[in-house]
């Protein structure tokens, strides 16, 4: 799965995107966050405050409970602050 990061999340992780093979135990966005947190402390820091995280699957906003099956791109980013 392609993972893309923006703003504070991007800077905390240190890259704007990566391609990852997710383990079979990862079904939802929440599972993916938990798994990444264990991979590296940079993810643990980037995802430390779930209240300040938002998610999109193939560019559609979803919640952390959303299943990943059938999607190619997961985006993780802070609440938006444009305008």
């Amino acid at each position, binding site marked *: 799965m392609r993972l893309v990061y923006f*703003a504070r999340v991007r800077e905390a992780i240190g890259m704007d995107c990566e391609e990852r093979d997710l383990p079979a135990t990862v079904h939802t966005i929440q599972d993916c966050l938990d798994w990444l947190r264990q991979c590296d402390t940079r993810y643990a820091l980037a995802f430390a405050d779930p209240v300040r995280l938002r998610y*999109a699957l193939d*560019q559609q906003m979803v919640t952390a409970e959303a299943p990943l099956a059938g999607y190619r791109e997961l985006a993780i980013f*802070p609440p*938006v602050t*444009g*305008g």
Partner: protein
Amino acid sequence: MKKIAITAESISTAMALTPLENLGGGALASFTGIARADSGVVALELEHYPGMTEQNLHAVADEAMTRWSLLGCVLIHRVGKIAVGEQVVVVATAAHHRAEALDACAFLIDRLKTDAAFWKKEHRTDGSALWVEAKSTDDARAEKWID
């Protein structure tokens, strides 16, 4: 008429209003957001999610077009580094009557702030740079448009 643009070049209110002037409407409204020199801020940096951000802006524009029977609406958002005093965002509407143009213009900027994938960083005189936190007052303003 609907026009959406995200650009790293400098923008102006006129760019949004000009295409709306000859649609036969009696009313144009515009809102322009400018980078402010708040407590040592010298520049903003705007990041977006190419593809998704454009979709977000089209969705907000489509909702306004339908809800207020607009003749036209334009949303232009700048990205990249923006010096204090420069324009960050311009929204403009054309309608037959003023209530539609004014209400739709306020709706567009309120909803753009909460629904479009942009992130803003503030660069300060001391060289520091901080991501702006989302404001709950923005959510409150956007929610008042929900019927």
